[in-house]
């Protein structure tokens, strides 16, 4: 068995077709390193600039609590240093929120992305492994069994005292080692480039995430390898096996993710933007009907009669607006999650979404950022209430329209700059760059798929006619 494996490795590494594809994979990993070190620096620069601006503006407004908590900060999501593993469309997803103590606006994309570029799959690890390396796997292994039969070596091989189990394991382990050597070398090159370009801080979290990503990649490649051995032991000539494998590969790489998107778009209906605005208007009108009318007028005197009603009105209206938009965004997230979930059917789709979960990019990263921004807004709101309570002269009408049009409705005393909650603290504590969660579900699914395919491949080999 060891001999078969060793022979397989030796032959595999010398093979011209392996060298071609391995060269392409290596180039892809090198390009990946450069692209993502560049984009990480750019995103980092933008993030730091926005942070500096927020600090400046907070300092300028710190003479009054009203100004501080009314100020619409731009919270830019810190770039993930792991987006080289799974980009998750980070250039297309919104990355910037406007937030103050009372509300946050719909997220926007303020990254330096270019909508004029055609939307193609980004060149991240999940693409290189799921698409290019899976093709490499198929190309080096499609004639593992049927090819030996064609050359007549299979009969020769089986005339030795080797069981078919040993033959199977030898082939599998030998080819898997070839793949893993390639993967390890190329990944090391990519990581080296990123580190030397200063785009990858090597912390324990990051290292752990890279480790999990590599494990998932191994399982994915192993699945394609087993599929390839299975097909190779089912067909008579290698060429037909290859045609079947290539069709399976196209289905896994393109058709399943595409179909998943189509199904998700049909099954989850997202309300149009104008429908949301209509809903907000209708609900506001319904709310107004239950309130005394004169309370909505504002004559510049915060201590006037009925101002409590106005506070209540503003609070409720902001709540309506926030709820309606949030509902839309979470529905959008649900749709995108459904696409990810449906593409679990294909190993390529599975590792793509698993890697996004590990690296906190794509939809998982977006959802987490949404939650963090919501939490930050709550923090700011609590802070406003707490500081306002200390001011005896304040009318304590803690509300606003979000643009500070009503002056003096709560404390205008200066605020200690260091006590204002900052969103950076939340970014840091949440570890947005690398998730501590292990993608158990995807790991188990992939392992189960591997096992099933291994059994199939083995039985196919058992009843293979070597003549």
């Amino acid at each position, binding site marked *: 068995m060891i001999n078969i494996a060793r022979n397989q490795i030796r032959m595999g590494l010398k093979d011209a077709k392996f060298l071609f594809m391995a060269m392409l994979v290596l180039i892809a990993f090198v390009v990946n390193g450069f692209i993502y070190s560049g984009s990480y620096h750019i995103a980092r620069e933008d993030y730091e*600039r926005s942070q500096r601006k927020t600090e400046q503006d907070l300092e300028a407004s710190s003479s009054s609590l009203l100004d501080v908590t009314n100020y619409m900060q731009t919270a830019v999501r810190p770039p993930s240093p792991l987006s080289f593993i799974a980009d998750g469309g980070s250039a*297309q*997803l919104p990355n910037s929120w406007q937030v103050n103590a009372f509300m946050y606006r719909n997220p926007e994309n303020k990254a330096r992305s270019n909508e004029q570029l*055609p939307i193609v799959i980004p060149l991240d690890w999940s693409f290189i492994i799921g698409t290019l390396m899976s093709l490499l796997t198929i*190309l080096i292994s499609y004639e593992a069994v049927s090819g030996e039969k064609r050359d007549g070596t299979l009969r020769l091989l089986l005339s030795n005292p080797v069981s078919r189990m040993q033959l199977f394991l030898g082939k599998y382990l030998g080819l898997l080692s070839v793949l893993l050597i390639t993967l390890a070398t190329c990944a090391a090159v990519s990581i080296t480039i990123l580190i030397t370009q200063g785009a990858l801080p090597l912390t324990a979290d990051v290292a752990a995430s890279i480790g999990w990503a590599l494990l998932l990649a191994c399982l994915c490649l192993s699945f394609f390898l087993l599929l390839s051995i299975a097909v190779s032991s089912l067909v008579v000539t290698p060429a037909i096996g290859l045609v079947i494998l290539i069709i399976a590969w*196209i289905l896994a790489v*393109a058709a399943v*993710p595409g179909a998943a998107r189509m199904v998700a778009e049909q099954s989850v209906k997202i309300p149009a933007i104008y429908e949301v605005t209509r809903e907000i208007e209708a609900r506001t009108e319904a709310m107004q009907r239950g309130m005394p009318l004169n309370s909505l007028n504002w004559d510049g005197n915060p201590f006037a009669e009925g101002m409590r009603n106005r506070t209540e009105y503003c609070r409720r209206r902001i709540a309506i607006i926030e709820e309606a938009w949030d509902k839309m965004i979470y529905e959008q997230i649900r749709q995108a999650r459904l696409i990810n979930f449906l593409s679990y059917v294909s190993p390529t789709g599975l590792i793509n979404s698993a890697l996004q979960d590990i690296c906190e990019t794509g939809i998982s990263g977006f959802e987490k950022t949404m939650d963090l921004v919501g939490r930050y807004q709550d923090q700011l709101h609590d802070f406003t209430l707490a500081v306002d309570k200390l001011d005896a002269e304040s009318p304590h009408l803690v509300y606003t329209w979000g643009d500070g049009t009503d002056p003096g409705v709560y404390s205008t005393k200066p605020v200690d700059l260091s006590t204002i909650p900052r969103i950076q603290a939340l970014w840091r504590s949440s570890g947005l760059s690398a998730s501590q969660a292990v993608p158990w579900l995807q790991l188990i699914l992939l392992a189960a798929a591997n096992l099933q395919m291994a059994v199939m491949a083995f039985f196919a080999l058992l009843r293979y006619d070597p003549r």
Partner: protein
Amino acid sequence: MFYHLFSKEVRELLMTFRFGAALITTFVLIALSVIVLGDDYLRRRSEYNRLADLYAQEAAEVYVPSLISPQLHRPPSPLSIFAEGDTKHLGNTVGISRWQVPVHAAGSLTDNMLLKAYPSFDLMTVFILVVSVFGVLFSYDSLSGERERGILKQIFSNPVSRGTVYVAKFAAASAVLAIPVAISFLASLLIISFYHGIGFTGPMWTALALMLFSGLVCGAVFVALGIACSALVRRSSVALVLSLFLLATLVLFMPSAANGLSGYFIPLKPRSEVDMFVEKSLSEVREEVNRRLAEELQRLGIARGDSSMIGNTSGESLYLFDGNAAAFAQYVQRVIISEPRYQKRADDIWNLEHSHWEAKTRQAEFSAVLSLVSPAGHLRRAFTALAGTDFETYGKFMEAARLFRQQLLRSFRARGYFDRNAWEFISRRKKDEITEEKYRARGVKYIERMQRREPLTNWEGNWDPLPTSMIPTFRFEVEPDFETALQPISILSLMAILLCLCGFLAFLRMDVR
């Protein structure tokens, strides 16, 4: 002889497993995508019609010029079923306002901004991926395989030139590949016409024919690639691997790498530059307007009152809240002073935005140059240009919107709305009717109406809406862009011919034993 060779090749290919697989895969994938995307198109179309009706209705109720803020909509194209392209996720609605030049459209008819991260799956994608793979599969063993089996020697024992054999093989493989392509294309047309009931206009039929043609040419490119590989190497399995390697490089790797590398080599300027300018210029203009207004009011002898307005109501009641003619006069002065300044600010912002837009165009052009040898990129450009889903069509729409705004402002200016007739801009009353008593009386009526919770639009009498001639008409139809499509189609054809020639040269010096 050519005919014999050709028919032999065709018959052989038709009987292979590959052909059946190609036929079924292409047909199923294309039919599936067309059914789903056709539904999607109908949904977007009805959404578009609803929006357009809605805003036409709202526009018909406007009775004060200052409230004219037309909404323009970008119609979806029926050909987008075949190529979703880049514009599906870009905005479709542009609100025209005096103080802002449209740069990007807002909202999109699909309305999930998060789906931008997922590549679409349409007929074009099937052509790029599936047809290219089968193009290679049909031809990788046409020369090397026959040599291995010794058939090639037999063929050359007949009085036949290498050119004839080569052309017959290329033509046969291309023709056989054309069968699944044409069948599934026709099937998708049938689905769209009979299942969805969508009709096409004259130029669209031409565009469809060109789409089919470019799909066939793209298939021929990969057939030529496969034959060239087959002529270059001695064993057909090596030929297959070589051609699949080239395919992976050209179709999968190059477009992705080109996008990423264009961002690496030509980085864009940060967006914050624009944001900062928008913020800074706003406070500057606001300050200047207030200063000039104070001076002007002092010069005219108008008392400066509280000009706070009431929101969410129509233009006529803007000044009713104060209920006096002086406030109205003050508001007129504000219009005269602020309009030209805010409009100039809008132009300045647009100039800045436009420089960003151009930088992005340069980046996209660089990316296109990097992926010049990729047939996938050319097919994509041809399809999206024909379907009107490329970025240029979106750019044309935005340009049309910008020109529309200019036209609207010109007509306002011609009527003197920003200087001598500014009062008319915010009121439709005769100038001498605007007295303090009258407005006091109307103010009371206004409050009563509010207390009865009646709608506040057009509350004072039933005024006729503005004549529709006040608003210039906007027409924008998505049309196939034949000029833009011509270039990628001719590059594709050239590629097919060049690859054919290379393959032929390799075949000339091939040892047929």
